[in-house]
């Protein structure tokens, strides 16, 4: 059976991370699964975890009356869902829903924050990696803001 550290070693987010740190991070993770339309988390709930998708697709949604749920972005295998666990007030800003059967690793945010506090170098490394993910998603979001397929596109 594949260990969580083994799973992490094949994920771009953790590329180049040494084995001892992978083990440290893996110690805060556990395998989990979600059926179609099951929510990984809901807006307003405490952001105690984040997820690494191993299989399946997850939709980040915002409930926008009167339109209902609007999908902001979908995330696929190898991607991270959630960074609200990193920043106060540790509350989810979106819903995350499985649009296909999802297998994931769930990480205990409190556990990881504790390890980062004990080992600032690990904290810096992890924060840099999450910042890279955030930058990429911000750039993609900016591209979508241009509405390139509209009449002016």
């Amino acid at each position, binding site marked *: 059976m594949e260990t969580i550290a083994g799973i992490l070693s094949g994920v771009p987010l953790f590329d180049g991370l040494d084995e001892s740190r992978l083990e440290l991070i893996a110690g805060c993770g556990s395998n989990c699964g979600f059926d179609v339309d099951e929510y990984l988390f809901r807006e307003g709930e405490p952001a105690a975890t984040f997820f690494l998708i191993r299989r399946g697709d997850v939709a980040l949604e915002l409930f926008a009356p009167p339109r209902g*749920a*609007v*999908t902001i972005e979908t995330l696929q295998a190898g991607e991270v869902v959630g960074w609200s666990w990193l920043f106060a007030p540790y509350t989810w800003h979106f819903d995350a829903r499985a649009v296909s059967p999802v297998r994931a690793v769930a990480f205990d945010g409190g556990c990881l924050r504790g390890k980062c506090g004990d080992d600032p170098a690990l904290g810096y490394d992890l924060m840099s990696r999450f910042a890279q993910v955030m930058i990429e998603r911000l750039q*993609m979001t900016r*591209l979508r803001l241009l*509405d390139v397929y509209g009449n002016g596109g």
Partner: protein
Amino acid sequence: MATAAELSPMTPAPFRVVSRRRETSDTFTFELEPAGGAAVRPRPGQFTMLYVLGVGEVPISFSGVTDGPLVHTVRAVGAVTEAICALEPGGVLGVRGPFGNCWPIEEAAGGDVVVVAGGIGLAPLRPVLQHALANRSRYGDVVLDYGGRTPQDLLFREELAQLGRRTDLQVDVTVDTAAGDWRGRVGVVPKLVADARFDPAAATAFVCGPEIMMRFTVEALLERGVAPERIHLSMERNMQCGLGHCGHCQLGPTLICRDGPVYRYDELEPLLEVREL
């Protein structure tokens, strides 16, 4: 009977609408047959100038290449395209062309084919895909990455669904925004490129869409390791004469109607960086 060689590039020949199919709220696919017996033999990537009497003329790419009728997909975004989209079967419009070069699909034989389209950009790439699928054994992996504004704005939806069921073709579709009942992807096309399964060293990419989408798509292709000279883009400017005489479609030293619309990225790159062009 007149032949393609007898079609004047300067004088629109009358063509009759034989079918009109709605693709989206503002986009239609037309089949046109010569009203006077003339014939046009298009190649993938080329375009014609479509003329509506008393309204004007616009360049429109072929969205299908057949031995029969001309196939054009038109989005109503201005006076001329709105007039074209209002035509019903039996209606007549003028056609000049075909003009321009074509997608180098033959050069991709033996390797993977990566088709990346955004919005109406799928229309000129459809013949590339049709050619690759009609000659499937000559190509390696064939990928279609397609992005649109919303699920309702996607072109050729029935065809996409059929293509998605094929095992010898990888189809990934994404939209910029969607309601919660959409089961597909939401995000930008370059992300599809990053996730697609193909061999970058053996791949030839064909890209068409809004220029900004093509820019980010090229970045994603280069990051995957696709060689610049194997990335082909279809460019759009204000084409008017179609013959390289008027200069309206000038892009640096090239005229898109004459030298394009399909360019290799390594040839185009220096021009794309000049803002005034």
